[in-house]
């Protein structure tokens, strides 16, 4: 069991999974999102190989209306 923070909210995951698997769990597969881990961008091309660690702080963002 690991605990990560997603957009400021804690979330427990059964094990250390890849970002690709994590995106799937969150229901964002195929969605236009960008992900930052501990202040650093995780490029989409590296999602499959990037494994989440206990304590990771993740930000998941989308484009919304704004001026």
């Amino acid at each position, binding site marked *: 069991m690991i605990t990560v923070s997603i957009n400021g*909210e804690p979330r427990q995951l059964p094990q250390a999974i890849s970002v690709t698997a994590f995106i799937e769990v969150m*229901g964002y597969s195929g*969605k236009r999102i*960008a992900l930052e881990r501990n*202040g650093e961008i995780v490029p989409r091309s590296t999602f499959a190989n990037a494994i989440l660690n206990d304590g990771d702080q993740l930000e*998941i*963002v*989308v484009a*919304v209306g704004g*001026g």
Partner: protein
Amino acid sequence: MNDELIIAGKHYSSRLLVGTGKYKDFTETRAALDASGAEIVTVAIRRTNLGQNANEPNLLDAVPPSKFTYLPNTAGCYTADDAVRTLRLARELLDGHSLVKLEVLGDPQSLYPNVIETLAAAKTLVADGFQVMVYTSDDPIIAKQLEDIGCVAIMPLASLIGSGMGILNPWNLQLIMDRVSVPVIVDAGVGTASDAAIALELGCAGVLMNTAIAGAENPVLMAGAMKLAVQAGRSAFLAGRMPKKLYSASPSSPTAGIIGSVHK
């Protein structure tokens, strides 16, 4: 006549840039954008709503990046670090898109730019390969420093964001235009069509607005009005207005050949 707005080497036929916030839904957003004729549209970058329907409508579907040039902004950022992180996320989200709007705010009441943090963020972003269009105060010295850093457009406020107070200090806009050679685009403060026309008449390269359109009773009608106002203002600037003659009138009709008085 070929009169295009050129930003970072890319040509645009519209000098009206618009925001995508505050509309009632994406249908209205898209209708207003189409009526405005804008090619460059600003978007915000925000956390996903966890636990909400992942299939909710997406701005990227309503306003496809294939049809519009996205200008991701840093609205809501109060530090250079937050602004830089936000735009790096935007670049990743938009497949390497590097044209961005930098704004670093000073306080939530005035939304006035914090120029010290703005300068710091601009340096980092330019070094990182971003093409930075920068929201700033109407201070001509700061504007020049932002150009020297490498920003591709200087975007001074005309009055506070969302205030609709219009062009409060045309003299400062002129001082900025006298000093910088990249496009100067009025960002913030426009309330109605005449404000947009004034900005262009002054010689500004363009105008960026959101609330003036989205906050109108009929946003789509106002979007069309803004399109015409920007075109009218630009044409008037290019035409070169007549000099103002203070305290002296000049008749428009011939002064010779006026019929004489009848002598009785």
